[in-house]
């Protein structure tokens, strides 16, 4: 937990206060400014906020890169992240005031919208980093995902052993359920924790989401069997339930890990688009000055 709160509370929230101060100062300037025309990016304050905003965008983009370099230099990685997060939020205020709330279907508003997307995806990332690593630890009881997978493997082997003595249909369905269990997968499978597991039952392939179909079958068989067979089946069902729970943990972990990193898939390409549109914005402002 300490790691995850540290960039937000780094240096007693130094960058938080700087960001709040920057946002308040620019807001006050906007409120008390009396431009000779409706507020827009072309008033003296508009140019000032725009220049600050553009420099901040480039600096924050560099910061985003810099914080990945564990090279010797001034500042700590945590400090860079802290500055990146808080000043990024302050940029939202500065750039919005720079627009003077004038929007349209043009390159200028495109730059603004992309900037908002970058900042929002960044905020999403902060929230994800705040929430999911802790939740994942809670989920896995400090075990690693590999450990959970090994647990599943052991359970699988145990089930197969037990299945040897069980009636053939039970052996088959256990074989099939284990063999055709699926976790993870493509982008949406991971992000939405989709369960594509199936099971072959009486020659038909049926969905085995949450291993429920196989479990239902086993429970159905429990009503029919007797004696040692029933006892064996009860043991199998108990262990099959453990397997089901472990798979569920794996899927949740995959989902949370995916969500924790998915924002970056947007954050970085949109940042590139933002810098391009920022260049085009400045170009457009001065080509038709």
């Amino acid at each position: 937990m300490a790691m995850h709160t540290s960039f937000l509370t780094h240096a007693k929230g130094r960058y938080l206060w700087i960001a709040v101060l920057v946002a308040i100062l620019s807001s006050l300037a906007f409120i008390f400014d009396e431009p000779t025309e409706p507020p827009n990016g072309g008033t003296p304050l508009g140019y000032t906020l725009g220049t600050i905003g553009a420099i901040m965008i480039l600096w924050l983009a560099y910061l985003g890169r810099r914080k990945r370099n564990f090279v010797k230099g001034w500042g700590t990685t945590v400090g860079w992240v802290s500055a990146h997060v808080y000043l990024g939020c302050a940029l939202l205020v500065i750039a919005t005031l720079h627009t003077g709330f004038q929007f349209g279907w043009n390159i200028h508003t495109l730059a603004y919208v992309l900037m908002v997307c970058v900042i929002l995806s960044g905020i999403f990332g902060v929230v994800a980093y705040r929430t999911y690593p802790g939740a994942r630890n809670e989920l896995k009881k400090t075990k690693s995902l590999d450990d959970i997978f090994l647990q599943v493997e052991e359970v699988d082997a145990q089930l197969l052993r037990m299945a040897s003595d069980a009636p053939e249909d039970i052996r088959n369905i256990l074989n099939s359920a284990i063999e055709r269990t699926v976790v993870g997968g493509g982008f949406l499978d991971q992000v939405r924790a989709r369960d594509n597991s199936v099971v072959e039952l009486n020659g038909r392939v049926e969905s085995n989401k949450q291993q429920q179909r196989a479990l239902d079958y086993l429970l159905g068989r429990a009503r029919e069997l007797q004696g040692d067979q029933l006892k064996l089946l009860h043991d199998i069902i108990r262990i099959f339930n453990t397997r089901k729970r472990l798979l569920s943990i794996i899927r949740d972990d995959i989902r949370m890990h995916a969500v924790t990193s998915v924002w970056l898939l947007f954050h970085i390409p949109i940042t590139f688009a933002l810098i391009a549109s920022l260049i085009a914005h400045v170009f457009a402002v001065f080509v038709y000055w």
Partner: protein
Amino acid sequence: MTHLVRIIQAKGPSREVRNLNVATDNATLGRGTDQSIQIADKRVPLEHSTLTFKDDGIHIRANGSLKFAVNNQTKGRADLKAGDIVDVLGHEIHVLEEAGQFVLEIHLRDVEKEALRDKFTTRLWQLSIPTRTFSWAFFLLIIIIGIVIPSAGFFTGMQPLRDSPLPDDGIWLAGELHGTHAFMGDRCENCHTVPFVPAQEVDCLNCHLSVNHHFDTDALGRDYFIGDTCQDCHREHNGPEAITRTDQESCTACHADLAHAGYESDLQAATDFLEDHPAFKVSMLEMQEDQTWELNRFDIWDDELEEVSNLKFPHDVHMDPDGVLGPEGDIVMECMDCHAVEKGGMRMKTVTMEQHCASCHELTFDPSAPERVVPHGAPDDLMVLLRGYYAYQYFQESADPGSTTVDVAPEPAREARRPGRRKRSVSEFQMEIPNDTGSAEARDFVDEQVAAAAERMFEQRTCVVCHEVVEPQNESLNWGVLPVKLTPDWMPLAEFSHDSHINMSCEGCHEAAWSDWEGDVLMPDIGSCRTCHGGEHAEGKLQSTCISCHEFHLDTQGPMGVLLAIDEYGFLIDQFGNYVDEEGNILPPEEVALIEEEVRAIEAEYYEDQEYFESEYDEDEEYDEEDGNSEEGDGDSGSN
């Protein structure tokens, strides 16, 4: 019957043994999960073979073209006995006989077991999403759409781009145009003539030729101050409503201290309407000795201030709430009866005798004929008219003695007007009637009647009621009337809309009801306005800035724009035909002389060409004519 299958998996030095009971005589073998005997090896087909348990052995049959090895001999089917070893892709099936039963012992090949996790894609990075490629693709895409393609318009012409579905300079639009400029649509180059150069004054003046200067530019220099452009006050791309700067600062920068700002002026300083604005002055007409009128400025607070329009008009008499006596009894008058606002709401319409006074002030002249009136006009005309009237009366009485009235009224005198010519009084057209025509008696009658009527009118009851009757200027008349001229616009330096103040009463600003003297100037002072209006930052008052009342571009000043044209020889001229430079400044005489010399040279060359062409095509007359005409038309229409 149940058959035992023992599956042995070697795990390093140890081995795992799993017993499987197959409850059928026809066991299937393969990788598939529905097989009786499952071999979890990717290379093993889903359904490999069928084993049939018989009393004397086991029959094995591979599916389709699949093969296996029995005791190192490749076969598709075989009958197995105890001690046989079947090899299925490296996995050995030993046929044993235990307690009279066939038992299969499957020695699984030591397949390196894949970790379960490796079967699945559990992390996003394993998907190899090309973030870096996307990033650069987005970057380039936006640069190309936002800069490269629209900029190409500077080389190919922007219009083809605008007509095509490609992105054009429209995506650079910083904001909606003002309503008055909306007609220009997407033609940015109308104002932005040179890329990377701010729109210039000349770009505005190309269209706004007639917009006027703020002050006498000849006296104070052409520029307002260095760097000043139209854009200082007029900023485009702020939507359909806002284009003109309205703040006080734009004016007070100079008007706080004109001398300090470098302008010599009689104007007093002003910085805020409520806090710091000079008292109002009025522009009032004053009659000079030669009876011409001159407009002069007066302080509204001046005790000596008196309007001398030469009209006797006490407002209080006319504004009496009980009414003023008219021909048909008392009439309660309202301001609007005489003072009507011109269309547009700014100035008042001129008050005229005919429209506003004549309904009460009838110009009667003969008590014995009270219904007879004379038209309002010049004294000379009146005398002619009276003479005519009484001459006719004499004529009527002579023709019909005893009659005291005239049946036919004379044509009223009127001003004769012709387009483009000065107004002339009808009296100039009166026929000269020889003096010796008619009897002395008649002349005496007319003279006597006219003199009596004129005296009544000038001195007692008609003219003198409203006019200043004075000594005559010429000797043809016994009376003179001072000309009347009402000041048309008291405060020409401000724009006041009566329409905007329609909800107020007239008396709120003009104290006419209490004015018993025509010399009163009934214009309101600044305090009257300040009751409601304050400066730009006033609290509890209507916030009014300089341009709420004052205009920047003054009608009294010359135009800012110079109509630049190119004459037929390629030289810049202004709208008056003067040779000018690109700024519109008239060129000095020495440069004009050079140009004129050049023009003469061009003309000489042109005429030489003409002669050459004429001699060349002399033989073919028809062709010559045609060609000659078109040559003139194309070449130099200006010289014709």
